[in-house]
């Protein structure tokens, strides 16, 4: 539904009122901004001595860029792992065998319900204490494993709903030409479902990237953490945090934009419906596919 049907094109009086409204809104926003800047100025937080070390070449070369590299590295490993995990368990939930279906459901529902931060804390200590020889960098591994388990479960749901969203004829056609159910799933339905869910997976990447910042709380040297190290020498935690926040926003905004672009491009390559995820929790696509969301199933 387009929102424009909710109101008429404004007349002269309406336009004048809108102008007044716009101006008032702008004044309020500018007023708040001015107050914030005034207080920050009074507290010396706008001093160039605090901003320069947060923005100069040294900050980028030795803190932001290495931190960003670690953030992207964790996110990249987690994304690949989550896609594999998602395809395996998504197919598991569509399996012909009741046991496989049931097991996959339990795994997926469990990891969707447990907060990512709790998993990171747990795996960090677990790897550090009990898998000494096996895991070299427990913080990194904990971040990746926690992200894989959660986002993989979300992708598993995307796979399941992606297959469920395909026109029924696709599955029937597969069976008609003599393929078994498994073959139909693998060679007819899954490929189309994967393409349909690609934009949602890219949106999920935003979630991965945002959640990787939780790694800071277990001591992983991600962007946020390397910013903290920079701030401890220069005494400017607020300034550094603002730079870090801008970096995250730009990066995620680009990803969302790619997801949007993909959704448009790929729609011709599948009989399913390409949809972007909302960038939080289980995607909308899950619930639209008729599969109940959230709890046990």
């Amino acid at each position: 539904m387009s929102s424009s049907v909710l109101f008429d094109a404004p007349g002269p009086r309406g336009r004048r009122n809108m102008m007044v409204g716009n101006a008032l809104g702008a004044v309020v926003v500018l007023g708040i901004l001015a107050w914030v800047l005034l207080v920050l100025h009074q507290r010396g937080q706008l001093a160039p001595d605090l901003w320069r070390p947060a923005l100069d070449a040294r900050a980028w070369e030795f803190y932001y860029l290495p931190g960003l590299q670690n953030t992207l590295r964790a996110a990249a490993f987690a994304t690949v792992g989550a896609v594999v995990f998602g395809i395996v368990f998504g197919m598991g939930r569509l399996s012909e065998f009741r046991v496989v279906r049931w097991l996959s459901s339990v795994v997926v529902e469990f990891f969707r319900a447990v907060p990512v931060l709790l998993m990171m804390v747990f795996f960090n200590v677990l790897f550090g204490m009990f898998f000494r020889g096996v895991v070299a960098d427990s913080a990194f591994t904990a971040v990746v494993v926690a992200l894989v388990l959660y986002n993989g479960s979300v992708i598993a749901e995307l796979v399941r709903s992606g297959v469920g969203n395909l026109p029924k004829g696709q599955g029937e056609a597969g069976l008609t030409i003599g393929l078994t159910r498994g073959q139909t799933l693998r060679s007819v339905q899954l490929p189309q479902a994967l393409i349909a869910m690609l934009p949602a997976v890219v949106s999920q990447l935003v979630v991965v990237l945002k959640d990787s910042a939780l790694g800071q709380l277990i001591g992983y040297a991600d962007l946020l953490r390397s910013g903290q190290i920079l701030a401890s020498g220069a005494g400017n935690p607020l300034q550094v945090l603002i730079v870090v926040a801008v970096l995250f926003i730009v990066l995620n905004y680009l990803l969302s934009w790619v997801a949007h672009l993909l959704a448009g491009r790929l729609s011709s390559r599948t009989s399913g419906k390409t949809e972007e995820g909302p960038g939080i929790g289980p995607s909308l696509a899950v619930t639209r596919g008729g599969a109940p969301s959230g709890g046990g199933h």
Partner: protein
Amino acid sequence: MRKRTTGLLALAATAALTLSACSGAEVGGGSAGGDDATAGTGGGDTIRIGIKYDQPGLGLQDGNEYKGFDVDVATYVAEKLGYSADQITWVESPSAQREQMLQTGAVDMIFATYSITDARKEVIDFAGPYFIAGQDLLVAADNTDITGPESLEGKNLCSVTGSTSAQKIKDEYAAGVNLLERPGYAECVSALVAGQVDAVTTDDIILAGLAATPQNQGKLKVVGAPFSEERYGVGLPKDSDRCEAINEAITEMIDDGSWEEFVSKNTEGTGYSANDELNPPTPEACA
């Protein structure tokens, strides 16, 4: 259709391989530690030393260099063990992960304001101590009513996440103190400068380093009434064969005046002086 699925899977596999080929970035440009976690002690080309990256005056990452008292001591000791400065790989070892990093072999030794305690001795070995600090309070320069932990009743106190120092004050000295935990000292200090907390607590030498940073010079002071004894040791993996050699190096460092020089160099301009009754310390016998 089948071709496309395998194509996608192949893509994922290729991506995974490409990814594993690029290693992690060590903030500060040092090479990443931990990849060859099994490298034994001694005989290697490089030595991996765990330090703090976020403690001005003790262990601070400054661009691609590392500065502070712990860094100076570690460099001195490493040289006596046969490693020149450019053979040292510095690794960040946050408080909560120090034992673990030694146990997993992610580092060979740790110089990171690491207090020798019986609980820690059960899982790792210590050489040293090379310095004896005490828990103290950092307050605004013009503050006169906070003189020690008992005077914190009803005040706001900041410490870093995962440290037990603030809880100790609440349990033993002032039950009515308000505790705030932040992930870095810089955040505690900015809350102190802004007047939102009344004091920051940790070991005196760390506080002196925080007070000495250019941004805070003249704004903060260390109360100067330490109420604990923190013996900084060199963390080693259990049953390490390096303990004796490190203790000899520490003794030598104290005897030839280097220790004195390191302390004064890193606390210059703070008015801080190490507790003379306890410093310089004599290293304990190795286990």
